[in-house]
């Protein structure tokens, strides 16, 4: 029984869009040019591979389904009215691929590859003496990045954080792109009152400090959303789709606070395109204005959208950690690097220091943001030669 969250749709969309671009690069002239441009840059190519790995992990963690319940004999459990019963806990492909990491939890902290717990415990020796020592782990040498406070494997938590990061990094822009294009084009193309109205809206929104807007928005919508874990019947539509996902609200509000730049860019570009000869010609030949917008203007804005998309990505991933620090980021049950950094603040003041949680978050985040920045630069250079060298 599959379970689809609203944020899963974002991941599906991004992955399929990336695949589409990849495939169309074979025959489409422009896309091919861009591809050649990127291919020249070895660093960007390597970055792209890393990003693909992350994307694959996020994708694997976004395909989830619930298992049918089985009784002791292995036969499926059927309720009195004949329906097959499913476990309320959905598991993603990633969860299923790594059953060891997911299940092998310890009692509390343990260092990477250690065979003992990091915290001393009072134990009784067989001869009845009470000693205080580090107990053996249940799964010694198994945790490549150690375990956290309740003994969960940090490598696994960090891997689960990939999806959160990708969703926020891409989702915020994806959610808001249609609006930005719609309003930007209207303002730029029609001018006059429409232009004034759109400019008014985005200046007003932009002038409210972003963090505060996010805070109030998340208090309003976010706190009632699904935050991971068990899927309750009331959350799911048709037992499959979960529309009210806290992460989705976070994407939406991050989009709202960052769409003004894109909207402004699109408006400016549309203003320019409107005066182009071929657009004027098309109008003269009797094409309707809607058609002109659809066939001539919007396609020529796509490079701006793509550039904004890749450039905003890393900033949004970093923003998540800060928001989680203020307590309005993802929920506590969603694995995220921001939550990991947060936990590690206290761990750093322990003596001896628990450093592996911070390290895990740092490595995973850095290994995503750095390639994203490099790749973003490359994409921009390829798409918009005027901007090269920036």
């Amino acid at each position: 029984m599959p379970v689809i969250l609203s944020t899963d749709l974002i991941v599906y969309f991004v992955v399929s869009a990336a695949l589409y671009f990849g495939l169309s690069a074979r025959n489409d002239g422009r896309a091919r040019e861009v591809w050649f441009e990127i291919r020249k840059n070895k660093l960007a190519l390597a970055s792209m591979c890393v990003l693909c790995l992350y994307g694959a992990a996020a994708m694997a963690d976004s395909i989830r389904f619930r298992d049918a319940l089985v009784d002791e004999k292995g036969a499926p459990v059927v309720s009195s009215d004949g329906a097959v019963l499913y476990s309320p806990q959905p598991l993603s492909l990633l969860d299923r691929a790594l059953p060891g990491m997911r299940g092998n939890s310890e009692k509390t902290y343990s260092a990477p590859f250690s065979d003992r717990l990091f915290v001393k415990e009072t134990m009784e020796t067989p001869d009845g003496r009470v000693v205080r020592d580090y107990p053996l782990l249940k799964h010694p040498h198994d945790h490549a990045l150690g375990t956290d406070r309740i003994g969960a494997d940090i490598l696994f938590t960090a891997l689960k954080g990939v999806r959160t990061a990708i969703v926020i990094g891409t989702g915020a822009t994806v959610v808001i792109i249609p609006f930005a294009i719609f309003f930007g084009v209207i303002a730029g193309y029609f001018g006059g009152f429409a232009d004034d109205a759109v400019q008014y809206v985005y200046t007003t929104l932009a002038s409210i400090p972003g963090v505060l807007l996010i805070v109030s928005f998340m208090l309003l919508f976010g706190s009632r959303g699904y935050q991971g874990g068990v899927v309750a019947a009331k959350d799911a539509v048709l037992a499959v789709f979960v529309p009210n996902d806290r992460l989705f609200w976070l994407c939406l509000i991050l989009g709202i606070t960052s769409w003004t730049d894109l909207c402004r860019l699109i408006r400016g570009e549309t203003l320019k395109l409107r005066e182009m000869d071929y657009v004027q010609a098309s109008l003269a030949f009797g094409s309707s204005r809607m058609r002109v917008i659809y066939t001539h203007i919007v396609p020529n804005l796509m490079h701006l959208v793509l550039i904004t998309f890749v450039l905003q990505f890393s900033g949004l991933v970093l923003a998540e950690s800060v928001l989680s620090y203020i307590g309005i980021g993802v929920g506590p049950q969603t694995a995220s690097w921001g939550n990991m950094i947060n936990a590690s603040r206290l761990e750093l003041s322990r003596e001896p220091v628990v450093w592996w949680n911070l390290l895990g978050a740092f490595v995973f985040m850095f290994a995503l943001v750095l390639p994203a920045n490099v790749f973003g630069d490359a994409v921009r250079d390829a798409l918009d030669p005027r901007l090269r060298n920036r």
Partner: protein
Amino acid sequence: MLTYVIRRILYAIPIVIGVNVLTALLFFYVNTPDDMARKILGEKNVTPEAVANWKAEHGYNLPSFINAKESGAKVLTETVFFQKSIPLLWLDFGRSDRNNIDIGTEIKSRIWPSLAVSVPMFMAGLIVEVFFAMMLAYYRGTYLDVWGMVMSVVMMSVSTLFYIIGGQFLLGKALRIFPISGYDTGVYSLKFLILPVIIGVIGGAGAGVRFYRTVFLEEMGKDYIRTARAKGLPEGKVLFKHALKNAMIPVLTNVVVSIPFLFYGSLIMETFFSIPGLGNFTIDAIQSQDFAIVRSMVYLGSILYIVGLILTDISYTLVDPRVRLK
């Protein structure tokens, strides 16, 4: 010029009103007065009478936007929106919900610590960024440039939280060179400011160097620079005498835009270093859900943003006479 400035300010008025309405909408629907009262009255012994009394005391017992019970103008004025949000328009912030302090007075006293951190941080950051950007531009295309760019991308890819936690740990705890956090008044504040300023400068350097380098390179690609080079001027002179002068325009506008926000302080920096500025004030208010303060700070932030916009436009016209006064 004066009429231009006045016109820009007049344009700002509808935006200010829009912000006002929007924040009121957000806040009164996010948190109904009942929620506020319960949160503020605490966990113990909160009776319905106490909640009703709190609402009456703080003027939240009125309808949000329209008071159908009254007649005439009072239909609009006897509402929470009119009583609480409209005075913001003339910067009358009122009193906080939680402990009745005068918000305006509090903001005034907190601006100085915010500025004490943000101004040195901004200035030092600017100097460091421009300096390195010029260096990279000067040595463009060499290994120094390539590695400099790689370094700035690397530095951009690290979360601010890492810089702060790492800085406090290293310089404050391990090496014991600076106090880990805290603040004092007057000159005594100096020793508390060095660490946040260093961390702030390092944290912002990556993005800043990249930005200014682009600005300089763009300027150096222009025709008049080529002419200067063709004249046989040494590269250093070309860069510092001609390119720099003209590159000052984007640098300057970037500076001007940032000025209003210096007053606003930095949320994260101030909490981590216990600096009693406006950022800290805002975080406190968010955490204790004192919406009178949050509302005021949202509004103040918007005003500063709008001031920044106006200043940018004006500085454009001052610096570059080609920009028309529209």
